């Protein structure tokens, strides 16, 4: 709260300290939504610019981290809404590595010995591409609930949506994601 108060009073070093402490968290959060590093940086920058402007509204009731997470959620959601959505991801759009990763999954090669940093990076990138075909709110719900293990109540707190809205969105988002992946798997040559 002291840091927030000092930053609110115009103490630049206090705000720099807030950034130093919380930027890894903001980056990790934004990283769930954007594939490009530049987009992640843009989102994080926007979050801190907004935070500086809105410090007056931070009353210190909750944690500064929670307050920043809410700003990050809204910022990422707005950026997703304004960015162009891919209508569909076809198997012909996949890179060789991505096709290889899916084939490995179909053949049951997801064991520990087949895990590698490169394969994880391919999978993370593919996940981002599949998510990008979904509506922004679906991306948010899936990323938070299924990717970050957030509870329905946590999503309610972050977004301000009702519990039933979160549940319905999560159900529909899972179905859309599953159908998108099913389409990709159906066109893999080595399907079981």
């Amino acid at each position, binding site marked *: 709260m002291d840091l927030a108060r000092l930053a609110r009073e115009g103490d*630049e070093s206090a*705000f*720099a300290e807030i*950034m*130093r402490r919380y*930027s*890894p968290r903001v*980056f*990790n959060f*934004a*990283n*769930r939504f954007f594939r490009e*590093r530049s987009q*992640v*940086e843009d989102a*994080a*920058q926007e979050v*801190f*610019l907004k935070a*500086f402007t809105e410090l007056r509204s931070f009353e210190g009731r909750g944690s500064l981290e929670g307050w920043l997470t809410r700003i990050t959620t809204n910022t990422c959601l707005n950026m997703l809404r304004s960015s162009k959505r891919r209508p569909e991801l076809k198997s012909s759009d996949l890179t060789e590595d991505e096709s290889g990763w*899916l084939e490995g*999954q*179909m053949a049951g090669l*997801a064991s520990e010995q087949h895990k590698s940093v490169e394969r*994880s*990076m391919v*999978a*993370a990138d*593919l*996940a*981002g591409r*599949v*998510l990008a075909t979904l509506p922004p709110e679906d991306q948010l719900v*899936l*990323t938070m*609930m*299924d*990717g*970050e293990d957030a509870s329905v109540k946590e999503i309610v707190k972050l977004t301000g949506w009702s519990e039933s809205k979160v549940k319905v969105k999560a*159900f*529909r988002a*899972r*179905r859309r*994601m*599953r*159908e998108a*992946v*099913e389409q990709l*798997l*159906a066109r893999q040559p080595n399907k*079981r």
Partner: protein
Amino acid sequence: MTKHIIELLDEKPFDRFSEAEMVTIRQHISNCAECEKAFEAARVSTVLLNERKASTHEPSAFFQTRVLARLREREASNEVWNFGRLWRATSALASSMVATVAALAVLTLVLPAETSVTSQETVSVNRYSAEAVILNQSQFGEELQSDSQVLTTLYGSEEEVVR
């Protein structure tokens, strides 16, 4: 055949199904190709989301510097904007003050003059009104004298004038 399990798959992430739920699912998909495809897709979706969670981006070394620079830029542009707003407000105030002064000047200088002209006109129209009589007593006194009386006053009696 048991009930299709597709809707069950969308209720929660794949890795959060209980043992009992997994038994039901596996029993069903062993006889249902459609649900088996959905099951595989749900499993891969969960793996993809977990892999996404594992990837990280660290803030770059210049991130903090860049944000602070943007903040300063924004503050500076806000100051310019504020000055512009102040200037506009000031000029509006100055204009209204000038208008007020002009209006007061008109009220002070023009209207009283018009009022005096009107009173003079009134006097000239009605020379014998009580007001005119009071104000111009001496004037009326002079006019009431005949021309000969004036001449007498100036040059004495008629006889003296003839002489």
